[in-house]
């Protein structure tokens, strides 16, 4: 009975795909020569101006640091919003069709009552993740601190640190959790890191360099500012992602 309707729907969808394709095609298929002015300027001046050997870091945390601030704000909003929705998902008393049909999909549940019923998990996972966690953390700090010299930086380091923290949380689920894996602590760290980021972005104002100006520009070590920003971003990203993952794994029983 719905055949005509479905056909009409398909026709409209096809027509809009054709229309959009026609608008997109010139952009995708263009072979205009790529501009080199910005690249040449950066190659000549970038290292001296920002102090970073890695030009991508120089742009990311120097020339266009305001975009990076926007990006961390987006992350902050996403984490806050996801967690508030998550709390409501957990509190919905009447779940839809039962989700027990998918045992494999329940890979990492942390809360004790769920774990007892879970035969697939062995001690091996806990042993390995618990031991590997600190090493992953160390690697994360390396990536974070050397962002101005080699590929990587605060954000990437932060993600690795977050996975290290998650490993630690998986490693010792029963008791004496280290301080690092408590959701409350992680949430607090996230907020403090955000505050620090804003403050360090404002610091240039008091040194006549303007917002996001490099307060160390005249001191001879301009890379110091990038290292500082990398650390703050790493702390922010690491704590917020770890916070989100741990709350997701453990349900909403955080406070």
């Amino acid at each position, binding site marked *: 009975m*719905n055949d005509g309707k479905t056909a009409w729907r398909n026709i409209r969808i096809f027509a809009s795909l054709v229309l959009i394709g026609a608008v997109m095609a010139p952009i995708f298929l263009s072979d205009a020569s790529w501009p080199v002015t910005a690249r040449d300027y950066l190659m000549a001046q970038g290292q001296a101006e920002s102090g970073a050997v890695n030009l*991508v870091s120089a742009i990311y945390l120097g020339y266009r640091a305001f975009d990076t601030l926007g990006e961390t704000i987006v992350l902050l909003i996403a984490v806050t919003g996801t967690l508030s929705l998550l709390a409501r*998902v957990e509190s919905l008393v009447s779940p839809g069709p039962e989700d027990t049909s998918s045992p*494999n*999909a329940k890979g990492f549940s942390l809360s004790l009552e769920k774990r007892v019923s879970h035969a697939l998990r062995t001690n091996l996972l806990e042993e390995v993740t618990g031991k590997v966690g600190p090493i992953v953390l160390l690697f994360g700090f390396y990536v974070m601190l050397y962002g101005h010299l080699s*590929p990587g930086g605060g954000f990437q380091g932060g993600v690795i640190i977050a*996975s290290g923290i998650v490993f630690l949380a998986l490693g010792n689920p029963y008791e004496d959790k280290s301080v690092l894996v408590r959701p409350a602590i992680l949430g607090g760290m996230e907020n403090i890191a955000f505050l620090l980021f804003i403050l360090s972005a404002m610091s240039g104002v008091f040194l006549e360099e303007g917002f996001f100006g490099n307060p160390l520009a005249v001191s001879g070590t301009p890379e110091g500012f990038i290292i500082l920003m990398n650390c703050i971003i790493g702390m922010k990203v690491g704590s917020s992602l770890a916070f989100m993952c741990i709350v*997701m*794994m453990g349900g909403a029983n955080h406070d």
Partner: protein
Amino acid sequence: MTILLLTLIILLAVFALFSSDLLHGVVAMSAISLSCAILFYILEAPDVAITEAAVGAGVSTVIFVWALRHSQRKEDRHE
């Protein structure tokens, strides 16, 4: 090499969109992210490659799996 990787990405995308098991789709999306990361590495963009690997293949997969754990895995096929 670039063309090969792009073809692989397209195939994975088609698989992800047409498989009826959402978890398979998530794995395919994660594989797309990894292929992208390799592609970025070949294209002289190591920073982007690291980010894509960590964020695309890592974090977003975790979130996808979490979402499926809280809902259902199979796509319901009722018209």
